[in-house]
């Protein structure tokens, strides 16, 4: 399988009054054709910024924008080098994105149907009439009844679950090669979440689309992912094939995360919890950023940053425990 998306040493730094925040610091990852990759991590780990950089939504051309460096190759082109017009032909057409808040992602003063028609007219050059027919077909496809009536309604008339379906309808309207979904079910109830995840899986199977799914929910990761990337404080700390990562996690952070999530029908008297909290992004020194919370912290962890290196088959981890030369030194 060839790579559809390849992010190489992406850096996104924000200058703030208090100092530089390295929101994404030297992150590399790839998504193959037809594959679902999940980026998992807690608030502030840089997972959303990574996704937004792919779409060119944190551009470096704006005066007040962040410093962006690295490469994002999509289907042979470096997205960070494209100008606005070139990006427009890719956004919505080849890469589509859905967000966490379906309530705020749609235009409140435009009927639903018009919003689905827009990319069809813009990218696929359909006539208004053809676009309208296709929009209604799409609404039906995402499992909403009475599509003609829904096409005429406004976002505030629909529930969160329905709006997220509409977002998916817009996202798949131009048969994108890559769907980026940033916490797509976080704001939804579990029964609705189950519907949306089912639908994403089904569309992926039908069209060989790749999915880059960003989530904090390990349950969603286990259900959706082929490959998982774990981020912490702007860095990738571990990545691997989903079964391997869940059954044999290597990084102490991944292990802690998996242990601290309560799981249905596996009740324990006391939950494992990772002590402390995420470090302040302004106060990061060369070190493993997890060292203050790590049970197996060594001297080297406090002063030197571990490199992401391959361990086992098709997995990588950034942790001094797996750097043999150091451990035995």
């Amino acid at each position, binding site marked *: 399988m060839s790579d559809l998306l390849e992010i190489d040493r992406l850096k996104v730094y924000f200058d703030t009054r208090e100092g530089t925040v390295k929101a994404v610091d030297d992150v590399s990852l790839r998504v193959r054709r037809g594959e679902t990759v999940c980026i998992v991590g*807690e*608030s502030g780990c840089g997972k959303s910024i990574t996704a937004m950089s792919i779409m060119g939504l944190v551009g470096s051309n704006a005066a007040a924008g962040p410093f962006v460096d690295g490469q994002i190759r999509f289907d042979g082109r470096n997205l960070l080098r494209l100008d606005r017009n070139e990006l427009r032909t890719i956004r919505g057409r080849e890469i589509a994105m859905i967000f966490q808040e379906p309530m705020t992602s749609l235009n409140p003063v435009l009927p639903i149907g018009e919003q689905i028609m827009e990319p069809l007219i813009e990218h696929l050059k359909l006539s208004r009439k053809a676009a309208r027919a296709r929009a209604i077909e799409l609404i039906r496809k995402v*499992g909403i009844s009475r599509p003609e009536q829904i096409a005429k309604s406004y976002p505030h008339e629909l*529930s969160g*679950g*329905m709006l997220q379906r509409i977002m998916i309808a817009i996202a798949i309207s131009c048969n994108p090669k890559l769907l980026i979904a940033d916490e797509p079910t976080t704001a939804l*109830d*579990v*029964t*609705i*979440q*189950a*519907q949306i*995840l*089912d639908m994403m899986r089904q569309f992926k199977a039908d069209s060989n689309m790749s999915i880059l799914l960003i989530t*904090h*929910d*390990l*349950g*969603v*990761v*286990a*259900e959706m*992912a082929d490959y998982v990337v774990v981020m912490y404080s702007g860095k990738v700390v571990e990545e691997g094939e*989903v*079964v391997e990562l*869940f059954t044999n996690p290597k990084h102490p952070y991944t292990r*802690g*995360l*998996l242990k*601290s*999530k*309560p*799981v*249905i*029908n596996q*009740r*324990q008297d*006391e*939950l*494992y*919890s*990772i*002590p402390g*909290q*995420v470090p302040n992004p302004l106060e990061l020194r060369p070190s493993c950023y997890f060292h203050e919370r790590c049970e197996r912290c060594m001297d080297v962890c406090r002063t030197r940053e571990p490199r992401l290196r391959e361990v086992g088959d098709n997995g990588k981890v950034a942790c001094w425990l797996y750097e043999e030369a150091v451990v035995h030194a």
Partner: protein
Amino acid sequence: MPEALLEIRHLKKYFPVKSGFLNRTVGQIKAVDDISLSIRPGETFGLVGESGSGKSTVGRTAIRLTEKTDGEVRFKGIDLYGLNAEELRRLRPKMQLIFQDPYSSLNPRVRIGDAIGEALLDHGLAPKEEIRDRVLDVLAACGLSAYHIDRFPHEFSGGQRQRIGIARALVLNPELIIADEPVSALDVSIQAQIINLFRKLQESRGLTYLFISHDLSVVEHLCSRIGVMYLGSMVETAPRDDLFRNPLHPYTKALLSAVPIPIPKLKRERIVLSGDIPSPANPPSGCKFHTRCPFAVERCKEQAPEFRHVGGERFVACHLV
């Protein structure tokens, strides 16, 4: 069986729907529609349901933060809705509420020590010179440090703010704590810390919790008995292990099967419910769940099922059970 600490009987809370030029009442939202439950001292009762199910409204009417429409609430045998304002105020320290959003429930201009201590002062529960010591005590109990006492809310992370919220409730020595989605806004690693804190405080102080959450895995972890709500009605209550091993109501089954489990390639039977939760302003006839229930029969559309005892400590409202 010990007497219930909190006894709710046939509680109803309707909100008027107003519309039109004269702002006339045109309908009612039955946020809580005839709910009964009792919570024993020292136990944790979990209330689960999706958004709009009325679980938060139960929490608020249970301690008379909003007025009821009908029904009865007894706290330690005292009829809460029979009290006058002064009597209710004197009882307040015994029933405390913890909110979901630790960001908006603290005044940004008030130092943490004052935010925690003001209720003590207000209720006259401690002389002024003792307050600082009492605040330091609860800060320590909640895993915060003494130097935090003079800090402002913006200096704390989400998890720490939730600890402050807990400390603020705890300083009054309550018997009942109503916790409304207290860990939903927190990251997994912090969530585990707060869940453990809830448990530890219960053990050391004999607290009773009404724990409101949409997250079934958290509820299973913390609660001894659980009630499941749908559109303002209770559909099932059961002891924890019974509910999770053998759910009776089709909605409970669907809810449990919809929770993603962090085990990849796990094969399990899933009941995917079709459609959305209907509007509480216009709930379906008969059993409110019949529009989404995969097992619904003709009778469910016409006749509302009775919430009835089905053995042990289990109650369920379904024609098919």
